[in-house]
């Protein structure tokens, strides 16, 4: 007997494995749980490259752990967790590992490691590990979670890891939850969560609040006093009818597309320039902006909207020449929106930067999935292997950037082309004239040099590559001012030459093909002869490095959604592998009703902008770490409705807005107890309040003052901005960017804010201070923090002074007495009459201010037509000066300024300014 036991122990020792059932479980646990944990949490610093191993500790084997690191103490004492520094470290007891708070092991994970150590820390060999993994892989769902079938990770551990089912909510098919009849389905789902708490939903808001809420929501503008009073009348007759008619009227307004298009542009990162050092204008980018606005106004089905933006050019090429709609090229402007400039970057890197950017943009925008993490490794939390990332990467690897000929559409606004072109030609002529004069001076000196050296004159271009001794110095005849100026003028010359592209029928678009020979963001065109026979092989790039190609991958899509491209294919997650058609494959896969991310993503965004908060808290990230939806059934139900109703947004808006939840008040009688039960208002017991966005704020003021020019679309417009910023020098590569010149007439300037020129390197200070997002990053939700620079802008800026005078002038035009003007001011700004106290106080205030203004003499505002700039010449380190012309100010039509109006108007304008500064104007309830 004893002999037998000894033999078995010996055998166990020899084999390095133990055989009891307990041991089997321990080894299994080690293989499936402890080892993946060590790999995930420790290996980044304690494994791999021996030079880089932290503290000399390697966790890749039992022996290495027992040997320990630089401390020369074992990190692991089998059987004794308390004596094992490894165990102390993961408990953050003395040592703290992993060092990041957010990476800390959970109690359950720590317990798992502990019982492994207690059991003698067995470490089965590879074959045993494989066997355990194979066994585990056969079981879809265990108490440790569910498997997700994907194209496979870089390691078996990753491929076989398990997810908590609730974490996968977005990756699973959209369900069609039942609804009860009789209640509005939206309210059914809302009250389902509210019912178990003892909280009653808030009462219905009053009609004035409701029309203001709906009008801002759908058009980004306030209602007029006339619209308010008409609505109140209709409401008192039949509230439901009145409400439905109001929604229909607002959805039919062309301003609807301007408001909801802005939400899209926030996510898509719209700007009119390319960013970085050159910050080149992307000529006619506005055509994409208008395409978005038109698509919303036309209620274009969202699936079409997706496909056009991702692969419009490929559809365009498939069509016979007579049926090629230029709008399809314009739509692909989406793929041109990221900041990108290949200057000073090698071509392969520049291409990689572009493709990484576009894959991530597509993931965030359409799939609510952040792809950036998967570039370097299998996703730490989501079922997305790096292989899928590089399949998507391969799908976009043949996407080449180009400005493409695309004739203007009848519905595109081409107003201002002639005036704009004349303006640019004027600036170009000035730059050319100055350039030529400086060049002539240089060449005259060169001639003298050649004469003095007894040789024949060689023109500038031809002497470039001659030896230094046989030619005059580079900038002969020019002092350092002139050297600097010549450089600035030459830059200006081509800036303005290039600006003339604005008036050409071209679109910022893409084409499918091999990489072009050269990349320069200054000019990207489709090459005349397209190589088509090029082999295009894509690899997984290990760690995201071009230098470390791994497995070859084919173009494809995400494999973890259970939504194949072609279920019958050998690998159902691959798309077309020819140069052309890859993107179209991805686009159609995204724009498919079975893609669970696509519909949930857009429905969530639509809900977000109606309620000021989304159902799922991170509209750009539905992954395991994103916030879970507060009402998952509602989100799914709305997704099914969206698809059932033809992917049309206007129907979804109406469905949501006719709910009781949308119409409820922002006041709640139990607000104090709600503060502890539901501080984030996740249950939607009352309507969330929001601050106007930057664009709404400006547009609402222009609307109230009567200055708003409601024209749709067209060339970017230049509103007046703080003049110090407008004229402020701004570095671009080799030079200073030209000054900001506002549009010439008030009508040209007072267009809606979505049309304002968006320069990546020069934010509009008014918009920036009111949290317009930086267009370099996709913005899923805007910030609205109250900071004092907002107060400075609203109290003191010229822009605000102009608006308040325009408002005062409107009041003076429309009604005769101060009392009536106060009344009208409140109606226009707040949609209500002032209280008696407010009326008295306002009248008194205006009278007192008029006294103040009588003695004051406001500055007369003049606009310079020429300014002197100074710049440090990069080569010499010395500063030089040059002048710049501002032709727009030669025949400028300014807004009324304080000096143009009397003390009475200025006093009334003070009141108007107070209204614009007030919280009542800034918030929507």
């Amino acid at each position: 007997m004893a002999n037998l036991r000894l033999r078995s122990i010996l055998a166990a020792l020899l084999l390095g494995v133990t055989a009891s059932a307990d041991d089997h479980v321990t080894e299994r646990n080690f293989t499936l749980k402890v080892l993946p944990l060590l790999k995930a949490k420790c290996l980044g610093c304690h494994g791999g490259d021996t030079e880089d191993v932290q503290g000399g500790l390697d966790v890749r084997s039992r022996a290495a752990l027992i040997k320990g690191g630089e401390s020369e103490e074992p990190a692991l004492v089998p059987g004794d967790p308390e004596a094992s520094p490894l165990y102390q470290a993961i408990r953050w007891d003395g040592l703290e590992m992993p060092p990041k708070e957010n990476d800390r092991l959970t109690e359950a994970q720590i317990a798992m490691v502990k019982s492994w150590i207690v059991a003698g820390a067995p470490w089965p060999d590879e074959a045993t590990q494989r066997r355990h993994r194979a066994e585990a892989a056969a079981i879809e769902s265990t108490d440790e979670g569910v498997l997700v079938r994907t194209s496979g990770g870089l390691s078996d551990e990753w491929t076989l890891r398990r997810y908590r089912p609730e974490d996968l909510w977005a990756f699973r098919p959209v369900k069609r939850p039942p609804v009860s009849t009789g209640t509005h389905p939206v309210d059914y789902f809302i009250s389902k969560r509210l019912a178990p708490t003892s909280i009653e939903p808030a009462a219905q808001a009053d009609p004035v609040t409701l029309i203001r809420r709906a009008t801002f929501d759908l058009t980004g503008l306030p209602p007029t006093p006339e619209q308010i009073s008409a609505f109140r009348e209709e409401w008192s007759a039949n509230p439901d009818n009145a409400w439905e008619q109001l929604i229909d009227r607002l959805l039919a307004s062309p301003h609807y597309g301007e408001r909801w298009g802005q939400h899209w542009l926030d996510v898509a990162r719209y700007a009119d320039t390319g960013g970085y050092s050159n910050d080149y204008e992307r000529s006619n980018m506005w055509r994409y902006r208008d395409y978005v606005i038109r698509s919303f106004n036309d209620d274009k089905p969202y699936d079409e909207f997706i496909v056009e933006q991702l692969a419009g050019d490929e559809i365009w090429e498939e069509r016979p020449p007579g049926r090629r709609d230029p709008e399809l090229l314009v739509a692909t402007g989406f793929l041109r929106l990221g900041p990108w400039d290949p200057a000073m970057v090698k071509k392969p890197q520049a291409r990689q930067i572009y493709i990484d950017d576009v894959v991530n943009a597509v993931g965030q925008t359409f799939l609510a999935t952040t792809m950036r993490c998967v570039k370097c490794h299998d996703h730490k939390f989501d079922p997305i292997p790096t292989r899928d990332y590089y399949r998507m990467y391969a799908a976009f690897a043949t996407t080449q950037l180009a400005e493409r000929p695309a004739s203007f559409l009848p519905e595109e606004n081409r107003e201002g082309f002639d005036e704009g072109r004349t303006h640019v030609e004027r600036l170009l002529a000035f730059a050319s004239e100055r350039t030529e004069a400086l060049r002539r001076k240089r060449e005259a000196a060169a001639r003298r040099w050649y004469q003095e050296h007894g040789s024949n004159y060689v023109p500038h271009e031809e002497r470039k590559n001659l030896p230094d001794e046989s030619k005059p110095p580079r900038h002969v005849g020019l002092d350092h001012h002139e050297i600097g100026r010549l450089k600035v003028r030459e830059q200006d010359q081509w800036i303005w030459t290039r600006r003339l592209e604005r008036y050409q029928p071209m679109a910022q678009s893409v084409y499918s093909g091999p990489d072009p020979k050269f990349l320069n963001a200054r000019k990207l065109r489709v090459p005349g002869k397209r190589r088509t026979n090029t082999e295009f092989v894509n690899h997984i790039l290990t760690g995201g490095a071009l230098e470390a190609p791994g497995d070859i991958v084919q173009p494809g899509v995400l494999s973890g959604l259970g939504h194949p491209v072609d279920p019958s294919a050998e690998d159902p997650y691959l798309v077309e592998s020819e140069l052309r058609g890859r993107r179209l494959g991805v686009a159609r896969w995204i724009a498919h009703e079975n893609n669970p991310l696509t519909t949930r993503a857009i429905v969530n965004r639509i809900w977000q902008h109606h309620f000021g908060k989304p159902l799922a808290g991170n509209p750009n990230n539905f992954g395991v770490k994103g916030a879970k939806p507060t009402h998952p059934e509602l989100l799914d139900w709305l997704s099914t409705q969206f698809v059932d109703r033809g992917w049309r947004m206007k129907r979804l808006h109406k469905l949501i807005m006719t709910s009781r939840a949308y119409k409820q008040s922002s006041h709640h009688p139990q607000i104090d107890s709600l503060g502890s039960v539901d501080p984030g208002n996740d249950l939607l017991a009352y309507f969330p309040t929001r601050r106007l966005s930057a664009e709404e704020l400006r547009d609402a003021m222009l609307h109230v003052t009567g200055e708003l020019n409601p024209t749709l679309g067209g060339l970017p417009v230049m509103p007046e901005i703080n003049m110090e910023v407008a004229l402020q020098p701004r570095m671009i590569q080799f030079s200073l960017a030209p000054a900001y010149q506002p549009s010439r007439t008030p009508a040209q300037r007072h267009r809606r804010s979505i049309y304002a020129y968006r320069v990546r390197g020069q934010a509009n200070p008014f918009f920036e201070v009111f949290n317009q997002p930086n267009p370099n990053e996709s913005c899923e939700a805007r910030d609205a923090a109250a900071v004092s620079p907002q107060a400075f802008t609203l109290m003191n800026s010229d822009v605000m002074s102009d608006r308040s005078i325009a408002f005062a002038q409107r009041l003076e035009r429309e009604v005769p007495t101060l009392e009536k003007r106060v009344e009208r001011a409140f109606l226009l700004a707040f949609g209500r009459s002032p209280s008696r106290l407010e009326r008295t106080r306002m009248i008194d205030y205006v009278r007192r201010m008029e006294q103040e203004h009588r003695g004051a003499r406001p500055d007369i505002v003049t606009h310079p037509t020429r300014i002197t700039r100074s710049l440090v010449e990069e080569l010499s380190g010395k500063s030089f000066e040059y002048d710049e012309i501002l032709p727009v100010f030669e025949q400028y039509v300014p807004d009324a300024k304080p000096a143009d109006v009397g003390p009475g108007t200025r006093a009334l304008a003070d009141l108007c300014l107070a209204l614009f500064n007030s919280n009542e104007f800034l918030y929507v309830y």
Partner: protein
Amino acid sequence: MTHKLCSRPLSTTASRRQFLYGLGASLGSVALTDLLAADSPRSTGPLEPRKPMHPARAKAVIMLFMEGGPAHMDTFDPKPTLTRLHKTESKSTRSLASGFKFHVGSPFKFRKVGQAGLDMCDQWHYLADPEVADELCNYRGCTAESLNHPEALFHMNTGSRLGGDPAIGSWVTYGLGSENQNLPGYVVMTELALPQGGSTNWNNGFLPAHYQGTRLRPEGSPILDLTSPRHKSRRHQRQFLDQLAFLNEQHQARHPQHRDLAARMESYELAYRMQTEVPGVIDLAGEPDHIQEMYGLHDDETAAFGRQCLMARRLVEKGVRFVQIFSGGWDSHDYLERGHSARIKSVDKPMAALIKDLKRRGMLDETLVVWTGEFGRTPDNNKRGGVYAIGRGHNADAMTMLLAGGGVKPGAVVGATDAIGATAVDCVHPIRDVHVTLLHLLGLDDNKLTYFHGGRYKQLSQFGGKVIDELLA
């Protein structure tokens, strides 16, 4: 509730509480309670000072950003080998430029300065003063990634090349708040021209807008729209604010549940206080002449940067947490000798004065001064216009930094670049490790200074980094 208009003008030194009672007559009760709560130690306003995570060596940072990329081998990292190789062909494939390349020796001579014997080129006169030089730590091991100015600027300022993530100053004020509630916690000063990439370099990114860098402009209004138009008097504005407070209070009475209203009203209060505080701190007239002289205010070539350095000292003295000064023109692709000597001249005296001044006031121990560019420069160059252009290209593999005060090892050289300055070879660390080290000195742990955004805890270093122990005193 009855209200009486406030007509008493506020003294500029009015305490917060006095101010509130002054305006309080026309503030709603909820707001008043909230604002008073901000006086209590439990307060957690976004910029209220917060305790560091571990004992801090520095309380404030002054970062001097040399935009364009100073050449390490022409400032603090001598390369005699390069001098020998001058104008010989370079076969290096590191830089992007193709075609014939030749080595460029430094136009400047070097000498060792101070007790510690730091290397400095002969263009540095004031910084070479042992009182200053022996405070400096020269770090030669940092490597950047991007060769393009704006991306490299974004990287050094925000930890990401892409531009759009929070700036380091935003992270620091997010972590520590600010000691002075009447001034912005994070102040940025630039030349008249903005650096490439503009305000993205000091943007708050996904952090709340309270942590955005506030730019103090060198000309015109120091902060945009800081003051009301000239024809409106202070009394005029006081009445405007009272009228606004009245409107807001009426509104708040109708919306008692709306918490944001109080914060917005408070932002006006801070704005009003800043209107007096900011002009005070930037008005240098009260500084004694010898201080003005020391910072180079009497000399055109040094006055601009000198004013900003002096202002930085005053701001830090007032409790501002993070001050950044951008000084451009270091991008010497040609005419290196002229370019760099002019740039060095413009910063040498003011920098030395800043270090000395901080030291004499006992502030250097707690103020970390950092001098850096966005990358270094190459040991070789291309011909320009067919001529041997004596300048240098962009180099992400080697650069040079100076650090002083705030827990940094004084009089030390840390790290090294190779014989010609092409690449860092010793104590090599990416930018993120420099960031982690700066945070560490401020008592912040990069791994714990996180912000949940877009479904992930984000941090300045992006994915974590290491403290460069060699830099610590």
